């Protein structure tokens, strides 16, 4: 298993995109921290990068990488290597490279400028988001053999989770504003890893008062140790389920 990961790494290292991603994150983090005298404000800026850019890059890079290594995958599948192991190694290779990029590009500046607990939460959420969207991208990529369709599906996923979903939730909240919706919002949050990450980080920033009653509820729930464990667990489910589905499909896929 480790051997395949090694070659996935080698391939990723040589095509330099992940390196460029690292440099971009590093540049963005440094300039955000540099512009603001208060590291908390810098973190708020970084929050948007983590919530929008990290999923986007994870999805598109993974999908394109998968299609580009199609021949490599075909070559390896004609060798004595089980399919499940191959796909999981690909996942581990891609996810670990992107996570490394995040840890260097965001983690290093956060550590240097003193992000504290909030910074740690931001980093943790970023790592989990990377893994979630890499898993989703693998699912999109094994679903269709056509490269442009696969990338299209990945981009639609991003639009949905990063932009569309919030609009839908707002619509629901508005339509049912006569009813107590605190519990429902909590459930709706669970259904979107980006929202989950956002709320998880915002609560660490101590600005939940800005979110009104729901904020108070969130504070109550996610502020507790149980809430954090819950958020973490849901994120892990968001990694495991798409990945498991991708493996199932890949095992029966014709190459």
């Amino acid at each position: 298993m480790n051997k395949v990961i090694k070659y996935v790494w080698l391939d990723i290292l040589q095509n330099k995109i992940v390196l460029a991603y690292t440099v971009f994150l590093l540049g963005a983090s440094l300039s955000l921290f540099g512009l603001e005298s208060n590291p908390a404000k810098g973190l708020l800026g970084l929050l948007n990068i983590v919530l929008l850019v990290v999923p986007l890059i994870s999805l598109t890079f993974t999908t394109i990488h998968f299609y580009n290594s199609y021949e490599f995958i075909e070559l390896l599948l004609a060798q004595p290597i089980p399919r499940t192991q191959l796909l999981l190694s690909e996942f581990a290779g891609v996810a670990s490279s992107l996570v490394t990029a995040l840890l260097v590009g965001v983690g290093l500046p956060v550590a240097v400028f003193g992000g504290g607990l909030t910074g740690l939460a931001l980093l943790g959420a970023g790592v989990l988001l990377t893994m979630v969207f890499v898993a989703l991208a693998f699912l999109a990529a094994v679903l269709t053999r056509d490269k442009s369709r696969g990338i299209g599906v990945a981009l639609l996923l991003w639009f949905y989770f990063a932009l569309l979903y919030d609009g839908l939730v707002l619509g629901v909240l508005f339509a049912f504003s006569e009813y107590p919706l605190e519990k429902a919002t909590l459930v709706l949050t669970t259904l979107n890893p980006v929202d989950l990450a956002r709320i998880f980080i915002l609560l660490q920033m101590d600005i939940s008062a800005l979110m009104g009653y729901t904020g108070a509820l969130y504070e109550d729930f996610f502020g507790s140790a149980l809430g954090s464990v819950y958020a973490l667990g849901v994120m892990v489910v968001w990694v495991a389920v798409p990945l498991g589905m991708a493996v199932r499909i890949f095992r029966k896929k014709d190459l």
Partner: protein
Amino acid sequence: MIDVRHLQKSFGPLQALNDLSVRLDSGRAVSLLGPNGSGKTTFLKCLLGLVVPDSGEICFNGKPIRNDWAYREQVGYMPQFGRYPDQLKIRQVFAMMKDLRKNSAPRLDEELIDAFGLLPLLDKPMRSLSGGTRQKVSACLAFLFDPPVLILDEPTAGLDPLAAERLKAKIQREKERGKLILLTSHILSDLDELTTDLMYLQDGRLQFFQPIGWLKTRTGEEKLGRAIARLMSGGPLPGQEPTENDRLFSTVQTR
């Protein structure tokens, strides 16, 4: 050695393999023939586990290959269009495959690397190679682990005459060492020299599987090329009564 029973595979409405049963034994060189799109490559990919059949069974040394991967330690595969990770050098591709298949070979067979004159090219990246050189690399990889079964999809296509001759000589030697060789080619003179048996597919059905000599006597042609051409142009299948058309055809020819 390989036992195929009632293999069935369709891609959407296209029936690629239709109730295909055949038994392939070691020490034989079987050429797979048929018009374009008759299911040759699909059949080879089924043997390799790259395509999962809809129904039917393939047994390798008595063990079904479905959900098994270890049998591929005994197979060397040369694809029709070998594609490799672009950035890797030839040396790295060989090193990678050796690394991944370390346990499967008692001895490494690097004869072809030398015979093809690849040694001075070892440090060239795969992306800079011509189609023919890629084919050479594919051939070397197929033979590298000295496997008892060799599956070669269009092995001589794209090779220069010298390399093609060397490859054919190699195939000949391996056949004599008691390996099972399965190959497709549209260069019939190659098949004439190399193979002992002919497996003829049409529309996914096995039309016949017979020793070459048998076909020649049946069609009354000395050259394999002519015998096959008769088959493909819709002449009588060996063993069938000639139709009215064929009688006309043969009278035209005798005149």
